[in-house]
């Protein structure tokens, strides 16, 4: 009747402790060398080619991929440790993170051998940035309404149309995009889209920046004007991208980046409250700690189930739903709890800067990578309601 929910109490294995110590030492060195400032949360979104190459050299990109493609055949749980330590430190991992989390795994599954041999080792070395071409001006959450067309031509496809809200497109080397290769059928409106690997240096691709409400660029519009994509850049089944979408979701949705995006305000609150907070501060802090601990245990559990070869799609969607709603509300909770602190507390300016930043980015957290509404639809389906 009802789908049962499983969250095995998985613990990170001992090898993760050694790895965590290495990651912390590496990040401490980078901070000491002024690569980034852990108190500047905006840095986490920054692209830093040198940093990404050094991360690649440590073996922390493509960690779970086969060694023959430059990967390191380590576990999902080890990758988990690297991801969470980078997030908590506000390290500038944006350049390689999308490729590491989702583009690489798609290539591993669908790309022909020579493309895997060419691209995957470069991702692992931290040399490549990927963007995701999903949304269009007329289609966002309704992915299968995409109109940008791929028309067949000799040896490949000609792309016409545009993608929008595309993160990192201005510096991306490649894009994994959905294009329409056939009209939808009466029986299946999801039919007719195909996944392509697009070389962003190909002629006929123009990237126009779109400024976000934070005042920073980040979004882009990507316009395709007869851009050519060769046949061997088709990823998977022609017209059948809809069949390929679901299995990656658990990976994409349940990681530490789904609840740690505003973590820095919680740390700053602890500094502001001091070692002997009043009852209101202590109780408010304690609840936030309990909620964070719960989210992390859920997220680690999903990582462990993925490592064990399970497909916890509903559990993964729940982690993203609860996690993003929590990290979105966190700046408001911290603001409430800091409301009656003495004006002259040491870190007042830092706390206010970080709250301002977190408050402005908060709205996007429940939109990117699957809106709350879409996630709850997936959860409802898993419960047997649709």
């Amino acid at each position, binding site marked *: *009747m009802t789908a049962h929910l499983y969250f095995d109490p998985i613990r990170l294995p001992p090898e993760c402790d050694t790895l965590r110590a290495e990651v912390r030492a590496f990040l401490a060195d980078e901070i000491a060398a002024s690569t980034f400032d852990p108190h500047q949360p905006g840095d986490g979104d920054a692209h830093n080619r040198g940093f990404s190459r050094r991360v690649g050299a440590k073996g922390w990109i493509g960690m779970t991929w086969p060694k023959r493609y430059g990967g390191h055949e380590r576990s999902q749980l080890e990758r988990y440790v690297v991801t969470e330590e980078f997030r908590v430190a506000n390290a500038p991992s944006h350049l390689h993170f999308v490729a590491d989390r989702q583009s690489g795994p798609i290539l591993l599954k669908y790309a022909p051998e020579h493309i895997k041999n060419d691209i995957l080792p470069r991702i692992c070395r931290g040399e490549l940035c990927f963007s995701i071409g999903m949304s269009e001006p007329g289609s966002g959450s309704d992915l299968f309404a995409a109109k940008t067309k791929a028309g067949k031509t000799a040896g490949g496809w000609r792309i016409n149309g545009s993608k929008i809200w595309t993160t990192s497109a201005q510096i991306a080397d490649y894009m994994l995009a959905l294009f329409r290769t056939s009209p939808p059928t009466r029986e299946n409106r999801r039919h007719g889209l195909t996944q392509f690997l697009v070389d962003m240096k190909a002629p006929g691709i123009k990237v126009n920046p779109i400024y976000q409400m934070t005042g920073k660029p980040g979004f882009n519009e990507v316009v395709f004007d007869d851009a050519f994509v060769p046949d061997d850049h088709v990823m998977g089944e022609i017209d059948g991208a809809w069949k390929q979408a679901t299995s990656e979701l658990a990976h994409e949705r349940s990681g530490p980046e789904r609840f740690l995006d505003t973590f820095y305000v919680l740390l700053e609150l602890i500094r502001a409250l001091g070692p002997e*907070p009043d009852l209101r501060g202590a109780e408010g802090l*304690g609840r936030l700690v309990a909620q964070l*601990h*719960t989210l*992390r245990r859920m997220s680690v559990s999903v990582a462990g189930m993925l490592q064990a070869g399970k497909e916890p799609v509903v559990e993964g969607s729940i982690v993203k739903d609860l996690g993003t709603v929590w990290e979105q509300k966190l700046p408001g909770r911290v603001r409430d709890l800091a409301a009656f602190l003495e004006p002259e507390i040491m870190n007042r300016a830092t706390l206010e800067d970080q709250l301002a930043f977190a408050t402005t980015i908060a709205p996007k957290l429940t939109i990117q990578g699957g809106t709350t509404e879409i996630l709850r639809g997936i959860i409802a389906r898993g*419960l047997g309601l649709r």
Partner: protein
Amino acid sequence: MADDGKRIVTETAARILADLADPQTINKSTNGAWKDPLWHALSDAGLPLAWIPERLGGSGASLAEGFAILGVAGRFALAVPLAETLCAGWLLARAGIEAPATPMTLAPARPYDRISVDADGRLSGRVIGVPFAQDSQHIAMLADRGREHLIALVETRDCRLSESRNLAGDAANVVTFERVKPLRIAPAPNGFDLTSLLLMASTVRSVETAGALEAILSLSVAYANERVAFERPIGKFQAVQQNLARLAGEVAAALAVAGSAADTIAQADAFDEAVFLEAASAKIRTAEAAAEGSAIAHQVFGAIGFTQEHVLHRFTLRMLSWRDDFGSESYWAAELGKRVACRGADEFWPLVASR
């Protein structure tokens, strides 16, 4: 091996409870006639004394197995002192005290209550909200003599009980000890204090709450698929689907955090910082889930779920009451917040990441 043990006790508990503790049947009963046969069946299977080693008269199950039993009990919103007897037996075993084969409960059940031991070994004090005290023949307790902690067993009839019930109608008595002579008394192990007892008992409540939440999710989804309004099952409406997805989120959070705390206690050598983080977090988050989840389930059922004849309240009111037992979510949040603040910001992430 360990998983086998858990599976066997889980199946045993589920079978007995399905036969003798069906919430619908119990809800219709007016005279409590279901209680004796149920308790006998549970006792025959050795479940109430699961956490007592065989040498002390128990069935010597592991902590993990006991928590698995309690997850099942939560799914039935069980209203006999199974959890309390398990916990009382566990407490007595800390001091090597043999447990009687009777329904038991434990005290104190609130963080600010204390029981003191006189120079001649008699117990005095007043403790509130002791679950099922009037349905228990014995009370296991932690008492203080100066700075020394002792574990004692008394007969309930030697104490003064005032009639009091929780939201769900289960006994939750004020128990007054006036120089009560214990049947047995022995020192608690080194480092074992009231916080240790409350963390353990809170985790028991967290596991039961997660079980009750699982049950109300199943009930709510089944009802939403079957109840027709506006010519469709209400589960086809997006507004209802979104609510049920939120309920699933609360259930998931409760299961994950309670399971994690139970696992931590089952593996731990002592009630250390890790146990505190896990057990306090579990009590806080499952209590929040109980409130949020109950509200959603009641919304799905509408008026029928607000009637006495419907089983929903057996789960929702019990969960809401359990929030107050062994330290409320507010109490644990304040204690956890104080500890985190005292450790300082730099030590915060390492603590979270250590789990």
